[in-house]
């Protein structure tokens, strides 16, 4: 991930009012995590699995602060249970930013499941999302996701793919 893309992600999170980020690190966002850790306006929380991160983000929502769950798209599968319960059962939203592993161009066999399952899992949960492959669209996509989630009180997602992460 280029430094300029990392900057656009952090600018988008700040414009959306995010002050807490939960993450489980992955390789495509490798450069993003230390930048988030180093940012004085963002508290990062490392989690043991993405479902735990989703639940922590839900708790942050209840405090009035804004949180983001940052992860590889495989983490979506680990998050399905808390997302379904919090989102559909209580109306507690989580905004997710995920790297798009397994899309066309993927050259790791183990990442193919992530590409095949990401969009159907988002659709199964009725989570609207935007796949962003142009750096100049990152910031707007993140801001739009928060606007939507704080109107619907439901989850939304931004997946970064293409040359942004490769």
């Amino acid at each position: 991930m280029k430094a300029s893309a990392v900057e656009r992600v952090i600018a988008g999170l700040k414009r959306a009012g995010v002050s807490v980020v939960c993450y489980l690190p992955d390789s495509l966002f490798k450069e993003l995590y230390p930048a988030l850790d180093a940012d004085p306006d963002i508290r990062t929380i490392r989690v043991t699995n993405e479902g735990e991160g989703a639940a922590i983000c839900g708790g942050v929502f209840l405090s009035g602060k804004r949180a983001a769950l940052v992860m590889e798209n495989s983490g979506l599968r680990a998050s399905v249970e808390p997302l379904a319960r919090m989102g559909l059962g209580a109306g507690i939203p989580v905004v997710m930013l995920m790297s798009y592993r397994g899309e066309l161009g993927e050259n790791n066999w183990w990442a193919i499941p992530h590409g095949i399952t990401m969009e159907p899992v988002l659709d199964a949960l009725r989570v609207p999302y935007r796949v962003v492959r142009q750096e100049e669209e990152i910031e707007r996509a993140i801001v739009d996701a928060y606007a939507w989630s704080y109107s619907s009180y439901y989850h939304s997602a931004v997946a970064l793919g293409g040359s942004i992460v490769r």
Partner: protein
Amino acid sequence: MKRYDCMKALAARLSDELVILSLGGSVDEWYNAAPHMRAASLFQQQLGCVTPEAFGLAVGLPHRRIVSLDTDGGLLFNLGILATLGNEQPKNLFVVVWDNESYQSIGGPPTHTASGRVDLAAIARGAGVEKAFTATTLDDFDAHCAAGLAAEEPYIVVAKVSGGVQPGIKRKHSDGREDKYIFVRHVEETEGIVIMGPSEHN
């Protein structure tokens, strides 16, 4: 030791705190044992989410004491949160684990703690939460509540309680969505903040 008696002891110590609690019989018991805390309690119906949500709330409101009422089944669903608490060391989070050694809400099949080998407090200490204890008497539990509500580090008490739900208690009628609105409006009012505000246009 009966869970309902423990709840009444804990409730007597609470006023300004915020509570997140787990599923099953404990929901209706807490609704009755702590009537003054109803709006300040978020009743959740999910395994594995209660303590993580309480931790998120504690991160967002560092000046406020947060209480998580979790269960053996709920904590076993996501033991990783103990390692996260061990590393993050929140100063305002008190976790109670109602350990009745069973999945009571579906009739009582045993959880892993029923074997006698699995010690949740020892797991918590191993995960870096040094103040993690097991209580087997009401006096012991009450003393841990006093200490846990005043602690400047994460504090966990695993309360070994008998199975069964307090008879004759009033059932809560609201669902998860209504519970969330009640809780959020309470947090807004007591914190003087807006969490779910008006839309741009009417």
